[in-house]
């Protein structure tokens, strides 16, 4: 059956096709058979690792199962809302085919509705990649009624899409086009990490007399009817058809309401954000500064300006710090004699090494004008050196504050932290330069989809150096092994043959 061109279904199919192309584009070999094979392998793997968890889950008491399900649903919902916010914000600013669709005679509500349906399916599938194998294994052990997780996840996806649309539109109304992107990224990051942060907070506030579970139970309870609504997906998944239908109705109604009520506002926002650059043409008055001399200085200044104006960099650094801080606090308080450096150093090293990696990628690999740089009378080495000097400055400044603070209390620990931080930054920057995955600067958010798994290598190095530093601070020999592992890992990933900055593009004859 073919959908009528311009119809709702036709647009949904178009959006899903683009989503599939984005997904398959992450694989080096994009042939359908190969991609499907990898997907099948991934699904099998997820089923295998879900098996033991499903057995453990099946053995739990009904009450405990409900608590686990409730937590899982809350986690999934927050994750989906976070994804929906990112999706709609990306749509506002990166636009893709939005301009084309808005200029077409298709009804704007159909455009937003189709995008929202595609977003819902996409975020449901992303979550489903982790959740559905577990559901299948539980259903296999406990009965097929547990497959109700599928429609429940779709309903939560619809609810999340509606919330994501509402949050994006709300932020746009309150903050305006210039600030919404950053605010939406931070909101999405906070939501995605909310449950982990909440759990960590409960753990931190707990004591032997008052465990974390008691703390959670002592929190204000929702009214009965709200309780019933909140627990609807839990009961629905556990086999109560009425609750499942209620949850699905809630998802569908909220979704439809959001499209009808917020769709036109979203499109207005899209039009406004599309006109954002035009309004920026109005030049701000600022004093004329004299030009400065030298290619190296010019390169460093240019890179620093571009880094400072990068819309993704700050939120990614913040996200890293948010994810890592609670883990470090837990490690810190678990020590018999916790020192300040043990709290600061590992987080600092992880955040700095991640920043070094992304900055190296932004400056060296996502050069906006590579051809132009090639025509300049400077050597490739000179360009690379200046770019690395440019990223060293902000990294050094970020390191300086905590290092000086540590130096006041624990000078030796401060020195160790600085040494390990430098090693980590150099390692992650080198990994990015040695295994180049060049792309446009605006695609920084998706750079980790590079087929060379640079991200994984970057994270392995960062973890090794953070562990090495933590162990060195507590004077454990394990630190030496971790440092050796990092150096060995870097060595086996050295370039063969030596790379050059990717400057030459395919010729246009």
């Amino acid at each position: 059956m073919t959908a009528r061109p311009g119809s709702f279904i036709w647009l949904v199919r178009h959006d899903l096709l683009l989503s599939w192309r984005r997904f398959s584009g992450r694989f080096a070999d994009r042939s359908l058979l190969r991609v499907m094979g990898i997907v099948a392998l991934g699904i099998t793997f997820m089923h295998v690792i879900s098996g033991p968890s499903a057995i453990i889950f099946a053995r739990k008491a009904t009450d405990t199962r409900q608590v686990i399900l409730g937590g899982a649903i809350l986690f999934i919902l927050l994750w989906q809302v976070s994804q929906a916010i990112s999706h709609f914000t990306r749509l506002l600013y990166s636009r893709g085919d939005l301009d084309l669709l808005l200029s077409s005679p298709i009804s704007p509500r159909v455009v937003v509705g189709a995008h929202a349906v595609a977003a819902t399916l996409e975020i449901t599938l992303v979550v489903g990649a982790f959740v559905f194998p577990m559901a299948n294994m539980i259903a296999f052990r406990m009965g097929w009624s547990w497959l109700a997780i599928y429609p429940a996840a779709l309903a939560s996806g619809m609810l999340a899409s509606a919330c994501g649309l509402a949050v994006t539109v709300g932020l746009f109304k309150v903050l305006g086009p210039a600030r919404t992107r950053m605010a939406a990224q931070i909101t999405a990051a906070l939501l995605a990490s909310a449950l982990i942060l909440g759990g960590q907070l409960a753990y931190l506030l707990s004591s032997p007399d008052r465990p974390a579970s008691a703390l959670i139970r002592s929190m204000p309870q929702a009214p009965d009817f709200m309780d019933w609504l909140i627990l609807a997906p839990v009961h629905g998944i556990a086999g109560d058809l009425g609750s499942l239908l209620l949850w699905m109705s809630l998802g569908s109604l909220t979704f439809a309401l959001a499209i009808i009520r917020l769709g036109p506002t979203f499109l207005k926002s899209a039009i406004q954000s599309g006109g954002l650059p035009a309004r920026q043409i109005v030049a701000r008055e600022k004093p004329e500064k004299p030009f400065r001399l030298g290619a190296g200085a010019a390169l460093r200044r240019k890179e620093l300006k571009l880094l400072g104006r990068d819309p993704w960099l700050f939120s990614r650094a913040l996200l890293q710090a948010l994810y890592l801080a609670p883990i470090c606090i837990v490690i810190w308080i678990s020590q018999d004699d916790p020192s300040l450096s043990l709290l600061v150093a590992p987080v600092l090293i992880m955040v700095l090494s991640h920043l070094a990696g992304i900055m190296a990628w932004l400056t060296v690999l996502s050069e906006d004008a590579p051809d132009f740089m090639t025509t300049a009378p400077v050597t490739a080495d000179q360009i690379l050196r200046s770019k690395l000097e440019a990223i060293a400055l902000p990294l050094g400044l970020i390191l300086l504050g905590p290092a000086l603070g540590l130096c006041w209390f624990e000078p030796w620990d401060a020195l160790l932290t600085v040494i390990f931080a430098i090693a980590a930054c150099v390692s992650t920057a080198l990994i990015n330069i040695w295994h180049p995955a060049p792309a446009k600067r605006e695609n920084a958010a998706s750079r980790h989809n590079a087929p060379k798994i640079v991200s994984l290598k970057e994270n392995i190095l960062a973890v090794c150096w953070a562990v090495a530093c933590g162990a060195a601070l507590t004077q454990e020999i394990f630190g030496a092994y971790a440092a050796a592992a990092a150096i060995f890992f870097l060595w086996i990933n050295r370039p063969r043959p030596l790379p050059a900055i990717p400057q030459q593009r395919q010729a246009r004859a």
Partner: protein
Amino acid sequence: MSVSAPPTPALSIRGLCKSFDGKAAVDQLDLTVQPGEFYALLGPNGAGKTTTIRMTAGLMLPDSGAIEVYGADVLKDPTATKRITAWLPDEPALYDKLDPMEYLEFVAGLWGVDPDVAMSRARELLEVLELWPHRHARCEGFSRGMKQKVALAGALIHDPMLLLLDEPLTGLDAAIARQVKDLLTARARMGRAIILTTHILEVAERLADRIGIINAGRLCAEGTLEELRARTGRAGDSLEDVFLDLTRRSVTA
């Protein structure tokens, strides 16, 4: 009586070859452009114009042949030739997050222009190109024409002896195109050599001192418009007629 030596050509290309996947994009190309000359390189799509320009700018290595800019070998001494050359592509190579002044400061720094000289040139160029009121607005909000003008200012800030312009007028409106043409003509009068590829034959007809027609990587005709007309035996014809006739002949030859 002393005989003065012929001036060093601004650009001398000898026996240039470049192929992609075994298909020749540039095939034994010979080309000479003198200082102060405005040279238009014309040809159908895929004729080898852009490849020639990119090899001259040092963006691509030839398979064989020699390219000299004011006597300096592009392959042996690229830094020296780049110092006196500017390349302007059809798609402006700009940094969206920089404003025009920042961009020009960056380019001037790369080419080692004295900061005071660069500052005054930047002002002059931005005023001529009517970009001065927008000098502190980021390029991301500019129209295509404005971006192209900023890129042109960047190409001229170090006062290059040889300007390589690859379809510089593509997508520009009449007013902006006129500004660009005036600026380029003035540069040629100042003794700078300009090589321009274009599909807008009217531009070549009006601006160029000499026209080269390239097809399938080979220079099939070269000369002033009158010389090309004489060659086709179609006096009074437009360049478009001459161009179509010569490219058709080169295919059938």
